[in-house]
């Protein structure tokens, strides 16, 4: 528990630093000792998982924090063995079904059934239901999501589901309608800054507000990242100075350089280089959606206001293609080429206008 992120994580709803209203609502929700299925969504680093754990603690007491990792083996109907890790306490079970790839449907069916079908023995001292926490639900296949539908209703008596995801757009309607959706938005800049300074105070350090702001900006209000960056700053240099450079994640730097390469020259050769860089990003396990998003953000910074709508439109178009297809590289490259074409035409038109 030595990283600040882990060390200073609030473990009860009362101790949460921001979105206090929501925390109160959650507390009220579980007041009666029961709650509906939940769908917690929001961007990464907003504190979804923290909130869920606080909720569980509110419900079951400190026992939920005694965790163990279980390696489960599930045999698919095709006799294929799927191995998956689950994190469990006596009261809940956390699983990331998308670890099983295409076989996630089997995981959902088998795992939840086994949990849900076993009744709690001592219902007087415990709740009569267990909680199954499914993470990264938006990466589940459609099959698995459909498998979830009936299970959610059938085993309502013995189990509650908490689904955790970044965006609900990939969760099918039937599931959304069966859950109480809770959105956890990113903390505001001020909230991030205050969290950072609180943590630093607890560590006995003095954090200049300028640096806090800078960290907040660089992290994109992702609190996890912000805390890590702050700690990295601490390792880099202490006492802090207001204008010290904040370490960034390498892939973001690399992505920015790629975007610059695209803007600086538009030719098939450059496209070939960009392709190599895109491949490099993909091999570092950066998801293609994130690459696309990062590229668009960087490119939009670099291009003229007139182009922005068109570029954004193109990005949306190719992102959609990306979701429909299998090979990310084609779509990323297609977007790059399209941007190059648009940008080049724009620049040439501009030059022509200047000539005459």
């Amino acid at each position, binding site marked *: 528990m030595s*990283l600040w992120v882990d060390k200073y994580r609030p473990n009860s709803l009362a101790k949460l630093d921001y979105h206090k209203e929501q925390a109160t609502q959650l507390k009220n929700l579980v007041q009666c000792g029961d709650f509906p299925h939940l769908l917690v969504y929001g961007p990464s680093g907003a504190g979804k998982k923290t909130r869920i754990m606080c909720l569980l603690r509110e419900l079951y007491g400190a026992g939920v924090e005694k965790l163990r990792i279980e390696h489960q083996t599930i045999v698919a109907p095709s006799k294929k063995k799927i191995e998956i890790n689950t994190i469990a306490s006596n009261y809940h079970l956390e699983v990331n079904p998308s670890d099983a790839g295409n076989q996630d449907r089997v995981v959902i069916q088998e795992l939840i059934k086994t949990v849900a079908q076993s009744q709690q023995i001592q219902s007087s001292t415990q709740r009569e239901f267990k909680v199954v926490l499914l993470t990264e639900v938006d990466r589940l296949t459609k099959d698995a999501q459909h498998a979830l539908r009936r299970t959610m209703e059938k085993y309502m008596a013995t189990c509650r589901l908490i689904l955790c995801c970044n965006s609900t757009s990939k969760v099918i309607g039937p599931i959304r309608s069966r859950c109480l959706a809770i959105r956890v938005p990113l903390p505001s800049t001020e909230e991030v800054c205050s969290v950072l300074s609180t943590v630093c105070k607890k560590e006995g350090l003095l954090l200049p507000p300028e640096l806090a702001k800078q960290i907040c900006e660089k992290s994109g209000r992702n609190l996890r990242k912000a805390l890590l960056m702050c700690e990295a700053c601490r390792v880099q240099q202490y006492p802090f100075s207001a204008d010290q450079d904040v370490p960034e*994640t390498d*892939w973001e730097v690399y992505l920015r350089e790629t975007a610059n390469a695209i803007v600086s020259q538009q030719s098939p050769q450059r496209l070939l280089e960009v392709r190599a860089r895109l491949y490099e990003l993909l091999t570092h396990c950066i998801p293609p959606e994130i690459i696309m998003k990062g590229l668009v953000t960087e490119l939009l910074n670099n291009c003229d206001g007139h182009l922005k709508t068109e570029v954004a439109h193109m990005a949306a178009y190719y992102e959609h293609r990306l979701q429909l297809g299998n090979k990310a*590289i084609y779509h990323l490259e*297609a977007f790059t080429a399209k941007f190059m074409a648009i940008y*080049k035409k724009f620049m040439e038109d501009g030059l022509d206008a200047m000539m005459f």
Partner: protein
Amino acid sequence: MDEYDELFEIEDNFDEQFADELEVLAEIEAPKAKRQKQDPGVVKRLFTSSEIKTSGGLSWTDDITPPSSPEHYEPSNTVRSVPAMLDISGFATIPETPRRPDIETRASLRVLKRPPVEGDYISVTDSSGTRVYLHQKEETGPKIADSRIVPNSQGSLGLLAVPISVLREQEAEKVSENGDTCFNEDGEDDPEDAEGRSTRLWVDRFSPRHYTELLSDDFTNRCLLKWLKLWDTVVFGRERKSRSARSDRHALNQNSSKPNQPNQNANRFKSKIEVTEELLEAELDQYKRPKFKVAMLSGPPGLGKTTLAHVIAKHAGYNVVEINASDDRSAEVFQKRIDTATQMKSVLGANERPNCLIIDEIDGAPAAAINILLATLNRKDGPSGEGETAKKKKKKESILQRPIICICNDLYVPALRPLRQQAFLLAFPQTQPSRLTQRLAEISLRQGMKADTGTLMSLCEKTDNDIRSCINTLQFLHSRGHTQLNAKTIQSVSVGQKDQNKGLFHLWQEIFQLPRTKRKRVGEGYEEAPGSGGGAQRFQHILHLASSSGEYEKVAQGLHDNYLSMRVRDPNLHGVCEALEWLSFSDRLNKVILHGQNFTMMKYLPFLSVSFHFLFAHTNVPRISYPHSQHEVSTRILSSRNTLTTMLNDIPACIRMRISQLSLTLDILTLLLDIICPKLRPVNPQLFSSREKEQMHELIDTMLAYNLSYRQDRTPEGQYTYVLEPRVEELVKFPGLPPRRQLTYQAKQTISREMEQEKMRRAEQLLMQRNPVQKEKESAASKPTRNHQQRLENIVKQTTVETRPEVDFFGRAVAPKPQRPQPSSDSGEKCAVLSMGTAVGNSDVWFRFNEGMSNAVRRNVYIRELL
């Protein structure tokens, strides 16, 4: 020469009798020019005489031998030294004919050991140096001087079974009434041929019936025939003629009069032909079989492989048994059929000939069937005389004694690999367009179609010299009522294209390269319009190629990898955008196909290649590299995933639940690596200040929490480094970015050591937690008796004499004798030792002096006290 061939055919048992003389036959084929020059000496005269004298009739064939020539003396092949008589000499060595004694006597009349007394003679020396003398024939004019050639009643010479004039008349008749006789000499076939003429395929009707009509490459034909002849020893029981390699090569030289055959005079390196020849010259094995039991013909479809095999097998005197893909080739059935074909022989019916097994289309056979074939080949003759069971077995599994010819299109099918090593491989070269055209011209002439050579040439080109396809196309056109063929018709006909896989590189090349401007044909009207007409044609061509390749995925990868390096002017990147649009379209299509099992969509995949062709085709020869990138990327992604998984697996649960793989890569990992590289003073950790110690402690805590550790590693240069384990450093490192700050070797070493200690400490703690009671008991028990105390007591015990109850020999207790009073000094000493021992044992520190050693002090020390 046609007359001659036909002449030979008349002899019914010709095939068998003539089987020995394949070289001669080969010559019939090849050096026409030479022979025509040489022959007249004898032949012309014969003809003239018979022409004059004949009045037709077959009644006199009885006493007439096949034309016996003066060279009859020598059954060996050295007759080549007498070129004038060459082809007729073929008849001389007919074995086992009923007329043989007759010939012998006649021969002995003619071949003399000494110069004849009367008449002219010719001396002939053979290769072994024996000289013989031959009568020189008198002019065989109207008056016949030689007594041998007895004119029959008609006055003809009677060298032939049927007078030549009769033959000629018959031929003329046949030709006039039945256009295709030339290719269909078998008399029996004629009637059925005539009636089924309209229904039978031309391919069958005009298929070669005889060796000399084969269109395939001479060398291939000859090799196969030679190989088949190697079986004669075991099948027919004939002795193989031993020939010196030299004469053989000589023969080959004579035969290879065609210009495209490689020169034989390059002595330094063996050409492929020579190697093949040598294979054929190789010794027979212990059962007198050739070294290779199987011949394997390979080549693209439509070159006449099956026809060749059939013709040659028939020619060599075998009865053909064919197994092809239409038969059931499962293991048991295949075994049965092989055994039937190779070990049995038909006793009824006309063809009491040994079988020759032809396995057609073997590349489609299952591997099990091929294994059975191999087992059959490698069967050893079981050791005889091993009792009854062995005999039975042996009967069941006798060795292979019949030739097997396998035919395949693709020699490199995986199932064929084991067979390839044991087979006599013959690759079929392309049919020569000139010969094919000639044959096509003959056919069309017979069928009353008018087609000039150019047209036929273009047909050949269109079908890639596929004989079958050419003839089928011709027939198709004929049946459609085209009697006048021209190039345009041929071009417009879409039949005759093969669905043939040409390899990925070829496909990519075709896609990225514009077709060269068509060679202008001489005397031909058609010219391709470079723009409009070509477009549709190119479209069809590429579409055809792409759809026949089938590997759409790989093709798309190749296109994607290579299209950007094509030299196409595309300043506005419109082409590139278009191409990528197509790629993403095909990607989505693929997803639909694979996920929905919607295979009807497959038909849209090859259009990708077409669009790339129109976007990027260039006249230059493209340099195409094999697409590795996607495979590489996928393996690298897999390995990084594995690294992440190993890291995640051992992270303790309380932290594990807060991080996912995604957040690890996106947010945590880079910063984490920064965090675990604090600035440490390069001093002994014992000398750290309390703040530094705390920092160190935190660092180690973090590393343990995130399952990271330093492992000492040796670089290839021999230096030692500490690397992070699992290797997540590579996961966050991007090429071209400034390297992250690294700890020094010493720092890493310190951290590594501290980590080990921390791990031990934790393990001890865990142990304490898990069984605290046991630990306490242990410590409680060990408190009063210290380690050294125990030893000391032992020593003391050793020194003190134990008082045991005395026993006698049988172990019974002996009544203690009254003890005599002993000197007190003894007991006093004992007491002193004892008291000293306890005194020493009671103190906390105990010395034992070991000379030259410094570890004299022993004390119980716990790790936690030292750390």
